[in-house]
């Protein structure tokens, strides 16, 4: 600047005025002028537009390039900090995305990144900027474009006053909201001052609250996002694996490891094959299936290959003379007697090192001790030579590649099948079964409205808390409401009509609304589970398993590997790979299904205990069997019924509940199993069937829609809902209660001599399901912990938000002196 001024001054004609100062009176007209004012306010918005965002980003990228060459201004450098922070955080999110094994937690890293920056941006907008603007008319984050076309915050530096940029309209609006006295001389000055004050206060509030609010807000947002994301991943996995199963079986050879195997075999062609190598080979050739039996078979096959290769080492005279070179007398081999020659030939033919050595030692002569010594030496040398000629990997590589090519298709098909199964019943977070189970247990805990103290008790396995919770739901003083249902139940008490009797039975079975809602929710969820993983799905998986095993079997047979082909699948299914796969899938499926029903049963039992039907049934059964039906023994069995469902393990059932925990005798066991697993609502089903087309029933059904729904649900085919429960009970009776009935044929199935007793036990424990006790402990813990977290941090968020909003109400108010000043001015 000085240079410019100097040059202008220097070019001025000298003024002859006497006054020295006048020498500096410079005519600047047309030479010096202020910068043209190009700044303008941006429309005041709480949320910026995405277009602007992209534009800014583009500018920032250009700026980084310029700054790298040393050209940038403060404004640009300031913005680069934001960009760098986002870049660094993105890089971190990407790293954690890769590091996390689960799809959901992977995604959550980016969600976390988004919510964190989102909260940082959103918090000041919603908790500070917007409320203050609504109340005072001042947008504390008002932006403007300066003359150099840079976007900046108007109130960033309170000492750099830019309030001149406000229009008349803006000022009037603010003045009105800020309650600046009308008709003040120089009113604008007051308004601008107050606007600035408001901005300073608002920005300070932002700095004070952001650190506390942003992390909590971000964490809460992540919490909210997690559930729908999990559901979305679940749905997409179910769909995509279904599609893959329909399309890719037999068409895809993704897991083609031939190239790897080839290069391994080529590299190690001269390696001696010991047990370690065999084991490794078996692992690599094995399709991705958890079957020790099949692996054993592969090892057997590799060993047989080696044995065959071994025979290729032929022992002849040249081999022997080479092996013993320098240790036998020269010409010994050619000077053998006829008998010795014959003995040697036989020994060589047999491949017996011992015989060859002995024959030659005898031929060499000497006393017995010398001969023995000599024989030992020869044996050692011959063995060494043979060992050097032991089959190496190269000898069997062609066969191994053959085996591999026969199994490649199977492996890739198996992978598709595994994905399908795993998405449904996989023992992993995010599989359908895991999610559905979590939904069910959460539903239960929520419906029973446990408080935190009760959840703590449940974590310790206290059954009473659960019973109290269920009883609360079951207890319904006015179960039929006050409407038409109540009227019907009251007026039909003594009716003899079959239809009416049946409907009464149905209504009574339902008990009350709350209970019904809980049970039907659980049943519906179990029904959904049956739909996704039920019999249809399992049979389709079994069909696919059969197809791929069959193909692999044919392929193995084509390559002449029949021993493995037999193990792949055969008519006697036990012990084959196909059977192993099917059993594994089945075990997984029945376990979860049983746990659902066990829960429903327990709730049902508690309800029946409450309304007395359980005690009544037990008493009747005891009487029928001629046993002690006193109150005490009935009560004991009632308690045991609950305990069984709550905590019985498969072992308890295997011991017929005779162990110290239950101490049931044979008859009591029968009574209890009939109550718990007998087909309890058979009568309802029979009643429904006999009443098809009954006019009275139809009239009632048309009048009371929920009964109609109920009947419809009942009638629904395909193993859903209640009928699913009944099927389950039937199977339970068959497989768990009367399991020894099934033992004889089961026992006859042998896998390498091992009785299938153990297989049966796994299946049995599947039917028993997860004890409600441990299920509740886990769920109670999870719910308690997340509730506790939410209480602490949700509470913190509420407090922080409330404090900020209240503080926001103080912002922009007139101080006493300001008030006085305004009033004093006339």
């Amino acid at each position, binding site marked *: 600047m000085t240079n410019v001024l100097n040059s202008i001054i220097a070019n001025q004609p000298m003024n002859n005025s006497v006054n020295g100062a006048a020498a500096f009176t410079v005519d600047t007209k047309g030479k010096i002028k202020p910068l043209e004012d190009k700044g303008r306010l941006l429309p005041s918005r709480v949320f910026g537009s995405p277009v602007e965002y992209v534009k800014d980003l583009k500018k920032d990228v250009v700026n980084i390039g310029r700054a790298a060459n040393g050209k940038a201004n403060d404004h640009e450098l300031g913005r680069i900090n934001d960009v760098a922070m986002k870049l660094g955080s993105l890089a971190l999110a990407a790293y954690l995305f890769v590091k996390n094994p689960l799809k959901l937690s992977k995604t959550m890293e980016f969600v976390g990144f988004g919510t964190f920056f989102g909260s940082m941006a959103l918090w000041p907008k919603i908790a500070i900027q917007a409320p203050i603007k609504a109340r005072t008319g001042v947008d504390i984050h008002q932006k403007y474009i300066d003359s150099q076309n840079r976007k900046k915050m108007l109130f960033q*530096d309170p000492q750099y006053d830019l309030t001149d940029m406000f229009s008349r309209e803006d000022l009037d609006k603010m003045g009105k909201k800020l309650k600046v006295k009308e008709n003040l001389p120089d009113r604008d000055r007051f308004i601008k001052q107050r606007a600035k004050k408001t901005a300073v206060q608002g920005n300070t509030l932002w700095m*004070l609250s952001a650190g506390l609010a942003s992390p909590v807000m971000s964490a809460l947002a992540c919490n909210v996002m997690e559930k729908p994301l999990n559901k979305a991943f679940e749905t997409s996995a179910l769909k995509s694996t279904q599609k893959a199963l329909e399309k890719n079986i037999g068409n895809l050879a993704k897991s083609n490891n031939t190239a790897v195997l080839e290069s391994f075999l080529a590299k190690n062609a001269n390696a001696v094959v010991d047990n370690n190598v065999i084991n490794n080979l078996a692992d690599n050739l094995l399709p991705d299936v958890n079957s020790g039996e099949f692996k054993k078979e592969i090892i057997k096959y590799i060993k047989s290959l080696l044995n065959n290769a071994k025979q290729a080492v032929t022992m002849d005279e040249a081999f022997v003379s080479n092996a013993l070179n320098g240790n036998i007398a020269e010409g010994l081999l050619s000077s053998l007697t006829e008998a010795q020659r014959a003995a040697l030939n036989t020994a060589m033919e047999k491949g017996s090192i011992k015989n060859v050595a002995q024959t030659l030692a005898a031929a060499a002569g000497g006393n017995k001790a010398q001969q023995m010594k000599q024989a030992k030496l020869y044996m050692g040398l011959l063995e060494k030579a043979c060992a050097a000629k032991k089959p190496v990997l190269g000898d069997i590589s062609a066969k191994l590649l053959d085996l591999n090519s026969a199994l490649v298709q199977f492996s890739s098909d198996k992978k598709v099948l595994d994905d399908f199964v795993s998405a449904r019943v996989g023992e992993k977070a995010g599989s359908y079964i895991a999610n559905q189970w979590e939904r069910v247990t959460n539903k239960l805990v929520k419906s029973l409205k446990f408080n935190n103290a009760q959840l703590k008790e449940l974590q310790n396995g206290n059954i009473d808390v659960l019973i109290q919770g269920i009883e609360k739901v079951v207890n319904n003083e006015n179960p039929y409401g006050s409407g038409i249902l109540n009227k019907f139940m009251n007026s039909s008490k003594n009716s003899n009509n079959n239809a009416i009797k049946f409907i009464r039975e149905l209504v009574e079975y339902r008990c009350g609304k709350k209970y019904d809602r809980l049970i039907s929710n659980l049943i519906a969820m179990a029904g959904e589970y049956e739909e996704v993983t039920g019999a249809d799905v399992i049979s389709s998986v079994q069909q696919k398993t059969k197809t791929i095993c069959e193909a692999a079997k044919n392929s193995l047979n084509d390559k002449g590997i029949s021993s493995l082909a037999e193990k792949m699948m055969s008519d006697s299914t036990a012990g084959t790979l196909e059977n192993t796969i099917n059993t594994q899938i089945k075990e997984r499926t029945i376990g979860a299904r049983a746990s659902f029903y066990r829960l429903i049963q327990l709730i049902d039992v508690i309800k029946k205990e409450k309304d007395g039907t359980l005690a009544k049934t037990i008493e009747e059964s005891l009487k029928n069997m001629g046993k002690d039906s006193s109150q005490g023994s009935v009560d004991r069995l009632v308690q045991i019924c609950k305990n069984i469902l709550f905590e019985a393990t498969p072992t308890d059932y295997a011991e017929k509940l005779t162990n110290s925990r239950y101490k049931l005798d044979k008859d009591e066991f029968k009574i209890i199993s009939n109550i718990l697993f007998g087909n309890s609502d058979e009568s309802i089903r029979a009643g429904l069937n006999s009443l098809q087309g009954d006019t009275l029933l139809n009239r009632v059904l048309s009048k009371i829609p929920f009964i109609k729904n109920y009947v419809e649900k009942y009638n629904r085919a395909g193993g859903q809902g209640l009928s699913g429960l009944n099927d389950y009970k039937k199977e339970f009776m068959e497989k768990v209660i009367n399991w020894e009935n099934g033992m004889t044929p089961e026992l006859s199935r042998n896998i390498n001599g091992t009785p299938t007793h153990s297989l049966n036990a796994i299946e049995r424990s599947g039917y028993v399901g997860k004890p409600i006790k441990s299920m509740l402990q886990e769920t109670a813990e999870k719910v308690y912990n997340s509730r506790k977290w939410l209480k602490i941090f949700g509470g913190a968020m509420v407090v922080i938000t409330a404090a900020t909003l209240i503080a926001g109400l103080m912002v922009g108010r007139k101080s006493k002196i300001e008030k006085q000043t305004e009033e004093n001015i006339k």
Partner: protein
Amino acid sequence: MVLNIGVQNNNAQISKIAFGSNKNEQKNAKTEDKYINDGLLLAEERDKHPLGLNVKIQANKMKNAFTKYPKKGITGSKNANFYEFLTMGMVPYLSGSAMLIAVFNYAAKYFNTEAAQKASKLGQKMGLGVLFYGLAKVLSKKLIELPVKWKHGIDVNLPYKKKINELPEEDNKNNLVSYEYHKAYESVDFPRWDLLYDNKYYGEERNAYFNKIAKKMKISSDNFNHADQKVKPKIKEKVIQTKLFSTLASYFWAATGVGIAMQKPWEEISLNPQKIIFDKKHYNQNFFKNFGKKFVESCKEFVNNPNKNTRIAGRALLGAAIGITLLGNFKTLFDFNKDRGTKTHAAVSLIDNSKEKVVC
């Protein structure tokens, strides 16, 4: 803010600014005052006690960020300024870090043992992540700033103390002075050249500082009439580059820090402060040794993770941090603009006579 207008002379008293007790400071305060109105360069202290000065400045800023500035800000003081707003930025940084650690750790104390252990494993990593983020971010900047200082003599963090004479306010009519700590190169648009001219700490000559830089930058005095004209644009350029690359790199180092904090070895050591401080028998004795060991193990796992993809990602992240740092070193340490002007070019080129001049 009213600046006392006076002769700019900030060198005479530099040696008198005591670095030490409050008493001395108070004694010197008055004499000092009239000199530091427009800024007192703390070059000598910076050279002699870099760490002490830094601690002093940060402590002062922190104290004000949590006490004086919020009070001024929340009452809407007419003396509130941008410096105070920026300094208050420490508040969300610290409270946010604490909150982030709390979000992952605090609730665990209500959980039962097993769940608490599981939660604390993650919480501990998150806490460490916050710590390493901060440390890596601060320390990594030095990787670019220090070489620039050694090679060119440009200290981008060169601090100066500034006195602010405030306007009287309703509740404050007497205590109208406040001090701020700025950096001479805080603004690249308006570096505080005035504090560097005629600064006796650098030498008797008016241009002593710029001569020194010119010498460091190996610009022969044959190439300029006055060192400042030649050197100032170069300093600006280097300051911009240093700021850019140290900022960029620092966030990647910070991310790497978090990455290291997320490794498995940290699960094997308890960082519960209560245990570390009070359970001397188990923790105190070997804590730092153990911590160091786990740090080394975690770094190794970060670069050599058994999982192939994680390993690649870890190396890529570290590579990005190192890469940006090296690029920054390369760009800042070497001068690619050697021919910027002849002896007189610097002076002449500032004005383009063919264009209309505008003065604001």
